[in-house]
């Protein structure tokens, strides 16, 4: 490497040159390393921020505002004819009962408009609670009791600190006089945030204070259970065939390429398949967990097959040879020896696939699981919705109260996912075997 045009550097000059370049190179090294670290930190910061936003928004969904009222079950309103028949009790005007109770609480409120404003503090659906109480126990009629009633959406938001009192009156959901009443109730501790049982035990509703996730949880459960029942046996069977029986030829190559590609097909395309084949062609009911489960089965099968094959591959051939040597047939070898050893790995893969299916919503939109459904689904052909789709539906609602409900539903969904993934990790840790 002698360059004749340049004079040769002395040792000292070379040393200085190298020293300078070394400093520069070390700087570059440190910079590069810092980029890497900041990338990791950025990723985690996103994660933390995402969870922070969801939790800070959603934690309120598990509490709701209730108002303590002295309710008088006036026979003149509820059952003027005194029949005590269920139909009559159901048809009665319980809103009037609440109005009377509110008026009794604030006797100095006069005029229709003011009375209407006053009654609006209590949720419009509180009357259903009273109706249910009276129908189940008609003896209440004519009696007086202190009852916690569901507060309206606006009061709930105010109690949770989402309403600015300083805003001009027409820009906030509560009027000045309503604030005065709430303050009075608060002073006597007759309005309070309580644990929100409604949210966890009821179905969907148009009113945020009444909406619950139980319908979606049941729908998710039915769908997932069916998905598991369909996809686990098929997935394991397919993996066993490909790994233990199939000779390597074009046909099995084709199957393999197919499975790998299916794993990366956008989920919405599976929804299109479900819509065109299961609903339009076979005429299965729309919005049903049955169809949802069939679509999710196709979606999760590649995941399960790939994981199961990896688990089967991990079982050493010596076990198979020993079994075959003892006179076992191929099927006996597989079912008695290979499958039990590969089962933890297969289960782990299946749980991960199920977790993915639980969070999936796009294909379910396609097959119509987006309907507004109040009832809790009872079977696999009932109309139902699932948790992620419920999140999607609520996030579309304009009411401010639904933001909280949406985040609350996400928390529940994430809780299920955490449980499933932790189970998978524990399974893997506990049964992992190195041969």
């Amino acid at each position, binding site marked *: 490497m002698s360059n004749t045009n340049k004079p040769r550097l002395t040792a000292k000059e070379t040393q200085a040159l190298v020293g300078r370049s070394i400093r520069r190179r070390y700087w*570059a090294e440190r910079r590069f390393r810092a980029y890497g670290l900041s990338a990791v930190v950025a990723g985690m910061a996103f994660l933390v921020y995402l969870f922070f936003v*969801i939790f800070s928004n959603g934690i309120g969904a598990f509490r709701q505002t209730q108002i303590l009222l002295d309710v008088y079950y006036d026979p003149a309103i509820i059952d003027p004819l005194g029949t005590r028949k269920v139909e009559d009790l159901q048809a009665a005007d319980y809103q009037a009962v609440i109005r009377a109770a509110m008026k009794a609480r604030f006797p100095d409120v006069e005029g229709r408009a003011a009375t209407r404003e006053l009654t609006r503090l209590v949720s419009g659906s509180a009357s259903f609670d009273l109706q249910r109480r009276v129908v189940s126990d008609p003896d209440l009629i004519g009696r007086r009791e202190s009852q916690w009633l569901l507060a309206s959406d606006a009061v709930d938001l105010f109690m949770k600190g989402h309403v600015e009192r300083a805003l001009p009156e027409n820009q906030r959901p509560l009027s000045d006089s309503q604030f005065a009443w709430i303050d009075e109730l608060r002073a006597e501790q007759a309005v309070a945030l309580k644990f929100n049982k409604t949210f966890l035990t009821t179905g969907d509703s148009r009113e945020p204070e009444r909406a619950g996730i139980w319908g979606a949880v049941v729908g998710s459960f039915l769908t997932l259970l069916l998905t598991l029942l369909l996809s686990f046996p098929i997935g394991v*069977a397919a993996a066993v065939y490909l790994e233990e029986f199939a000779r390597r030829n074009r046909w099995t190559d084709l199957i393999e390429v197919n499975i790998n590609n*299916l794993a990366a097909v956008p989920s*919405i395309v599976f929804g*299109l398949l479900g819509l065109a084949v299961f609903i*339009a062609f076979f005429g299965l009911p729309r919005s049903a967990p049955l169809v949802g489960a069939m679509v999710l089965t196709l979606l999760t099968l590649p995941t399960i097959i790939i994981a199961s094959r990896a688990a089967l591959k991990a079982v050493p051939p010596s076990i198979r040879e020993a079994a075959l040597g003892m006179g076992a047939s191929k099927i006996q070898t597989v079912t008695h020896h290979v499958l039990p050893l590969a089962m933890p790995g297969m289960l782990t893969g299946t749980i991960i696939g199920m977790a993915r299916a639980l*969070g999936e919503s796009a294909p379910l939109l*396609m097959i119509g699981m987006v309907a507004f459904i109040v009832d809790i689904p009872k079977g696999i052909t009932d109309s139902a919705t699932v948790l992620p789709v419920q999140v999607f539906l609520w996030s579309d609602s304009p009411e401010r109260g639904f933001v909280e409900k949406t985040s609350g539903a996400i928390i529940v969904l994430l809780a299920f996912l955490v449980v499933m*993934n932790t189970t998978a990790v524990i399974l893997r840790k506990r049964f992992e075997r190195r041969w």
Partner: protein
Amino acid sequence: MTAMWCALPALGVIALWLIFQDAIILKLITAQLPEGVRSLPADELSLVLNDVRNLVAGNVTAEVVDESVRAAATEYTRLRGISHMALTVLVMVMAIATVLFVRSRITPDLRARNRVEQVVEWMLLACSTIAVFTTIGIVLSVAFEAMRFFAIINPLDFVFGTSWSPQMAIRADQIGSSGSFGAVPLFAGTALISLIAMFISVPIGLYSAIYLAEYAHPHFRTWAKPLLEVLAGVPTVVYGFFAALTIGPALRGWGESIGLDVASESALAAGLVMGIMIIPFVSSLADDMISAVPQSLRDGAYALGATRSETIKQVVLRAALPGIVGGVLLAVSRAIGETMIVVMAAGLAANLTINPIEAVTTVTVQIVTLLVGDQEFDSPKTLAAFALGLVLFLVTLALNVLALHIVRKYREQYE
């Protein structure tokens, strides 16, 4: 052996019976309905039959139930009872017959185990072909509906047209909404959002993969890697909500403070959040690829006096490049097919623009918008969704095949 021969034919009979039972009973009932009802057009007839079925199931739909419908319902119940009885008898007889038949066949020479295993193997094979049938099903169903769409709309207009407004006129004399199906704005919107997502996820994913694979202490790695992968496990609907609730308004606020008019459903918001979602895909794939580079290459570079970062940049990354490109392609196909984030955070207006602060729409958003709600299978509006689905499927399939091919070639190189 006996059990198998007993069960398989019987199960087959049950399945066939249950499939055809309803159709046959309905035929019989239709024949019994009054003449006036029977001559109704097909769809009205099916309405009547639906009433019958509802009555049987116990949900009374109509207030006043027609007498003939009521009679038909009783008849339906009776026939179904008979049918179930007949089925039970038939299955029993078949089971007993096969048992007797098989008994007579069992001799010491019979290789029963081999026969049974043959059948089991066929069943396993059938299960493994479901993946193939799924692919065929996707292609056929989507392509079939897309063909019907292209019979109405010229494919060239679809692929090269620049105006997208799928609202068709409901009445013939309606003006102004003839419906145009030029999909270029959708393709452009999808590309724009995916590009933004890649701008976020590729640098962050790649740098974190490099850090985790080359620099990080094993201890740090064991908990940092799964934590990053949590990002991939969060349901996409959560990201969509996050984008719509937090990122969109925040970007709008920032834009206002520096005098920019950012649409609240901007491509930027959707792209940013999608980028966050894709980080773990890029990082874990790149991590695998970097770890697959043989240590000897690194040692060679160190021996020549290279620093660690120089080794990584000039040796490791170059060696891993094909694998990383494959991984990025997989991530791109993921971004293109992602639905929920864009449905919730991107707009519906089909703007043809490359400005990231405007609202754009994507292929998946349009599929969802066109198909959610009531639909019939003969309007171009519904069929357009399938045409878009076909494009989506083909593009992602091509990307996947290419990416998997590259990754496989790369793996073979170092094995």
